[in-house]
């Protein structure tokens, strides 16, 4: 299938021995000049790039406490060395979180610390050379910013913060990554990552309305740009057309329909994802976020709800109020923003949804905790709600649910292998290898518990798994949206069709 070997899945996780340099060749395509410039970065490598990069490094350590503290604090204890899915899948030692950080830290030491300035060899400090820059470009695009290492570090050092800073330094000297930067430029120009213009969106949503009416006999609406609606729904643009994403969007519409609330999508904020985070650029992240504020103001909504998307939910939950707040113009009875699962779980508890769990009886499900939802956000009022609420919803609409091994779920979950701006075909080897720990855990529940499908709540996870599952001999269709399960199980008021006489409903929570 490709010019690399898919890792072998084992019955129990094994920590591999290091193999130096085996992933040094992995590099994503470089961004073209026009896209660099649209984001406010130089089009190509600037002449005095060493100095510009060092100045940028100094600027960033002054702007981000996380970066300054993390660069100083690492003691090389080794606790993180076996925690990164990219290390476990590739065995390249520079994919160990501490070694990845050290690519940046050794330059920081050389230019900003006493020991590194005067005794570089002693503390492993190096000049910023072209070789170092190449290493940065390669290995800071082998980090999905999933934060698994930060759970295990005794000082909470988060490699994502270092990767973001490194990518921002590289952007500032004209070396950007094609995938991320072109997508951000597309968001500015058209409004979403996939480049779907307003007429295409309207067309798609109309098509969905027809499909749902054909299936159920009920006219469920999928509104776009409706002024005065109560709820603005912001969802990843993959939800507008790709399987299994679109089945999730169908589910959101059914839930809103049954809950009897008015809602709308926006053609301006037709994208939940915010790739500004991946490249560590506060300015770009803010600019992408402001679209949502503007859309909410223009449409005059009272609430904002985000669809199923992992990194988007991190930016929404953790950063949106900072980047685009304050949200004092929205209804103070509701958090801003809310997650679609918070909304659906609330409706399930209220009993407004008529649920037929047997509609999902053809599946035995497991759930993949998306990294940024798990370790960088929350749902509901309690810590850990981000683990409970998705599972509660799944269990409320399905009879068969099994969790994967405890060291691979909740805060210890493995990234899908495609997060953080790496979901691009030019990084296919990395994506396949990085998925190994998750694939291993999945294969074990398939063999031990007869699991048939894995549910996810992130557009990147869904796309990534669809692509890599076949490499591991599994079916690409086994990945489903959580709201696809909800959609299957909801019996709409007045619904016709084969489920008509089956009224085992209402055993919700």
């Amino acid at each position, binding site marked *: 299938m490709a010019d690399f070997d898919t890792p072998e899945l084992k019955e129990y996780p094994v*920590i591999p*021995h*290091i193999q*130096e340099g085996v992933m040094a060749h992995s590099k994503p395509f470089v961004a073209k000049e026009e896209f660099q410039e649209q984001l406010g970065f130089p089009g190509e490598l600037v002449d005095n790039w060493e100095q510009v990069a060092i100045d940028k490094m100094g600027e960033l*350590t002054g*702007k*981000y*406490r*996380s970066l*300054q*503290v*993390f660069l*100083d*604090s*690492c*003691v*090389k*204890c*080794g*606790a993180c*060395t076996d*925690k990164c899915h990219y290390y476990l899948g590739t065995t390249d*030692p520079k994919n*160990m979180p501490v070694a990845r950080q050290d690519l940046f830290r050794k330059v920081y030491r050389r230019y900003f610390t*006493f*020991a590194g300035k005067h005794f570089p*060899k*002693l*503390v*492993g400090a190096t000049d910023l050379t072209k070789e170092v820059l190449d290493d940065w470009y390669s290995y800071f695009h082998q980090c999905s910013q999933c*934060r698994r290492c930060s*759970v*295990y570090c*005794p*000082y*909470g*050092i*988060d490699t994502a913060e270092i990767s973001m800073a490194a990518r921002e330094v590289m952007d500032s000297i004209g070396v950007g990554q094609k995938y991320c930067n072109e997508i951000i430029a597309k968001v500015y120009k058209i409004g979403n990552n996939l480049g779907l213009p307003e007429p295409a969106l309207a067309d798609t949503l109309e098509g969905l309305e027809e499909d749902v009416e054909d299936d159920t006999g009920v006219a469920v609406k999928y509104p776009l740009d409706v002024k005065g609606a109560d709820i603005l729904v912001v969802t990843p643009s993959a939800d507008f057309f790709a399987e299994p994403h679109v089945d999730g969007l169908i589910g959101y519409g059914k839930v809103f329909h049954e809950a009897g609330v008015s809602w709308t999508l926006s053609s301006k904020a037709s994208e939940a994802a915010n790739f500004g985070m991946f490249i560590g650029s*506060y300015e770009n992240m*803010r600019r992408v976020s402001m679209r949502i504020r503007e859309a909410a103001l223009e449409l005059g909504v009272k609430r904002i709800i985000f669809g199923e998307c992992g990194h988007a939910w991190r930016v*929404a*939950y*953790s*950063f949106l*109020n*900072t980047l685009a*707040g*304050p949200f*004092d113009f*929205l209804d*103070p009875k509701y*958090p*801003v923003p809310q997650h679609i699962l918070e909304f659906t779980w609330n409706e399930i508890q209220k009993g407004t949804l008529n649920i037929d769990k047997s509609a999902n009886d053809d599946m035995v499900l497991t759930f993949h905790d998306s990294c940024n939802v798990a*370790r*960088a956000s*929350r749902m509901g*009022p309690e*810590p850990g709600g*981000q*683990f409970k609420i998705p599972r509660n919803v799944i269990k409320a609409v399905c009879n068969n649910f099994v969790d994967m091994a405890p060291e691979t779920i909740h805060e210890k979950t493995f990234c899908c292998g495609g997060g953080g701006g790496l979901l691009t075909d030019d990084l296919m080897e990395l994506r396949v290898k990085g998925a190994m720990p998750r694939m291993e855990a999945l294969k074990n529940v398939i063999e031990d518990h007869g699991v048939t499908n894995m549910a996810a709540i992130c557009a990147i996870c869904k796309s990534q798994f669809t692509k890599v599952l076949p490499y591991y001999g599994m079916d690409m269709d086994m990945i489903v949206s959580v709201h696809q399960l909800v959609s299957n199980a909801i019996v709409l008021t007045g619904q016709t069709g084969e489920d008509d006489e089956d009224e085992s409903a209402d055993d919700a929570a």
Partner: protein
Amino acid sequence: MSFLTITYTLLFYAATALLVAGLARKIMQYARTPAPLKIPTTPAPVTRTGVVMRMFRELVFFESLFKSNKWIWIFGWMFHYGMFLVLARHLRYFTDPVWTWVDLIQPFGMYAAFAMSAGLLGLWVRRLVVDRVRYITALSDHLMLALLFAIAGTGLMMDYVTHTDIVAVKAFFLGLMYFDWQPIPTDPVLLAHLGLVATLMIIFPISKLLHAPGVFFSPTRNQVDNPRAEPGLRAHNSRHIAPWAAELDK
């Protein structure tokens, strides 16, 4: 006063000044650098009290390290808490009369010195034996372990091999504190021990030992999980925003 006494007197004043000034500089830097975004590693506490508890567990039990790797945890904990007790035991050289609790822990301090050394050895063996840890180890990491081990070793030697005049040692340190300088005993082991300690003090603020103040400032651990506008937790008109980021709104 002998040349040795003058040297060690000046050395300890210099080491103390560098330690205090260096640490103060770094702590000021950490405190002044803004944390523009809320990045606690979740699940995280939603209240200040919860964060204090999280930090307490992190500092006292090394909670994250415990989740991570039991060997590093055992050796790291033995070393740090061994050293903590040993340091507490050494307060008897700086207090007159000696505080009661310092008197009471004297016998435990001896076991602690062995625990500290054993922990250091364990950590060192990991650096040599585990290929992943060997890969990330720099020369300075070995030297740091060597320094700490030599400090513990010379300290233990004075208890078990060649005793020193601890009354005179105490007079020397009290003299430093009250600017009433006293001669230092001339045993080589004591001089080595004190020289190594002064070295440690000097390199503390310019080395990875900065993890000690750093852990208190780590945003992934010390932030409250309350970023979004939420009824009852964070008002809809409130925001977490850094001064430089607020400039962008203008």
